[in-house]
């Protein structure tokens, strides 16, 4: 078992509880022991980086410090935005001693342990797309997906900026496809899989956001996908919940089930509905579950 500090982020504890329950149920099957963090806060979601960037840096340093305190080398994320925010702050703190010294002094002043720079921030996707994690995944996904056609949707902040994320070619990613295949599904290809779902501006600029959102859903539907899968709960909320608004705005009858990464693998690994919580989805997942006879 690999011990990893587990950063749920906001949504998995709030509107996307199904992501948290399915991740926790799946982790042991993938050889991951999740160490929960009590004292951590929101990473700022790019919003605090944009409004009060010095506070953003300190908030993320605090998360990294508490992750380091667990003795785990890896802080596992399950959200694209958390991944970018934490990796960016981590790189800055690891590679600028002067900056780290100042931040640590501030952390200690308010009673937070200082951060030494010994944590690596990695998304669940990366832990299971290669190496030991991938081998375990192939064993865990014993029930398979019966050739279900799955459209991978990466979203933005797990690919770009690649100098901070750096796991795979941001224009030709492969990790979700590898996982879909290992689970017995058929990955389908479409251009918008690496584009934006519109979520960051879905409240402030809904019309613009919906014009972005329609691309992946429409393309996946036209390519004959049975469902889409995403490693990001913000993309999930946008693709799933705002699909309602997309229907209304366009008059098109979109019915695309959207799965969290942990749910897709979870189905193939035989997790229970109490862990998958498909009932919490806005767009029904029934077409998927009935094909799989879950």
């Amino acid at each position, binding site marked *: 078992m690999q011990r990893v500090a587990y950063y749920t982020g906001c949504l998995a504890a709030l509107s996307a*509880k199904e992501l948290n329950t399915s991740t926790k149920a799946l982790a042991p099957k993938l050889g991951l022991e999740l160490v929960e963090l009590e004292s951590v806060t929101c990473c700022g*979601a790019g*919003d605090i980086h944009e409004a009060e960037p*010095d506070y953003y840096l300190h908030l993320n340093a605090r998360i990294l410090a508490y992750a380091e305190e667990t003795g785990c080398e890896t802080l596992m994320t399950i959200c694209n935005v958390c991944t970018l925010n934490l990796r960016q702050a981590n790189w800055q703190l690891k590679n600028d001693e002067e900056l780290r010294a100042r931040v640590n002094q501030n952390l200690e002043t308010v009673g937070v342990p200082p951060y030494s720079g010994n944590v690596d921030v990695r998304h669940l996707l990366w832990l299971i797309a290669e190496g030991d994690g991938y081998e375990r995944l192939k064993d865990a996904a014993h029930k398979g997906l019966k050739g279900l056609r799955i459209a991978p949707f990466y979203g933005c*902040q797990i690919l770009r900026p690649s100098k901070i994320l750096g796991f795979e070619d941001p224009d030709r990613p492969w990790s979700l496809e590898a996982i879909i295949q290992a689970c017995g599904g058929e990955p389908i290809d479409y251009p918008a899989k690496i584009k934006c779902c*519109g979520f960051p501006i879905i409240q402030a600029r809904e019309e613009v956001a919906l*014009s972005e959102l329609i691309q992946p859903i429409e393309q996946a539907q036209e390519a004959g996908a049975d469902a889409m899968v995403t490693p990001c709960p913000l993309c999930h909320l946008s693709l799933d919940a705002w699909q309602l608004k997309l229907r209304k705005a366009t008059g098109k009858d979109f019915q695309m089930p959207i799965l969290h990464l942990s749910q897709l693998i979870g189905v193939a690994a035989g997790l229970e509905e109490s862990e998958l919580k498909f009932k*919490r989805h806005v767009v029904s997942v029934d077409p998927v579950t009935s094909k799989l006879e879950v």
Partner: protein
Amino acid sequence: MDAPEWACLLDVLDLIKDKHDGTLAYRKSCRMMICGSCGMRMDGRAVLACKERMKPIVDAGHVPVISAMGNMPVLKDLVVDMSPFWGKIRSVKPWLDPGYDEVAEKERIVSQQQMNVIHKEALCIMCGCCVSECNSMEADPDFMGPAALAKGFRFVGDARDQADVERLNTLNEEHGIWDCTRCYFCNERCPKGVDPRDAIAKLGAESVKQGVDHDMGAKHAKWFIRSTETTGWLRETELVPKTQGIIEAIKQTGFALKLARKGKVPPPFPPHVAADVKEARALRELVGEQGRDGALGIVQGEHALGRIEFTEEAGARENAPEIQPGVEPPPAEG
């Protein structure tokens, strides 16, 4: 097509035009990543033709597809109409407004530290690569876009410019900074390391610092701050009224009810509270007194971020001298 080993994409285009098809249209001038003329797409990615070496691509047996940049109308072959691009650049008033008309008697010295704030944005060669794949501009052609906004910060961040608030008010309008969807294609594509998305974030930070925070985007961002100070985690359900105002939020009731039925509207009470959240509150108070607010909060991290390429990728640049932002130059003679 035979080309020498050292050929870049632009050399290959020159050969094609010379030997095969004289009608092939593309822009070029300096051949050394300074003029910004030869922006185009290779396999769907916006690149400068003079920067892309072709040997590794040929060695890999790959035949790349070359096309015109996106988000701008194609005039012919690889030439796009950049007039909307220039219109947006012009709209940010890309010239210094020092707040005086008369030339002063003494030279006004600007420190290296002050110029480092806009170092990255000043590298822009206006090639359009950042605009080519901009997702917000694809959805809204009127979006000012990464190049113009980075240019905007180049002047907002300039210590000599006295029109900050006026500029920020313009940049906060519809189609301005809060329309950026944070897809980060601009940072990925920029051939000069400008990182336009970071420049947009700097403008957001300066706006909030200067109290230009009336836009829904700014209100959205401020609610995240409030959330981390009070519960630690995002107070998700209150985000809509805090961003859009009560009246707009009421209009969304139908949608909210549909989401609520699926548990997608977590009740604000009891709140989901992180342990020791008072530490976050104390941190914000503490850093608020340390003078690194606004864009400086992002600029301070650039020293470390600038080292990624030096240490990980470009081996030949490993021995390049390190630039130390924040170091004061010796005082000017006389």
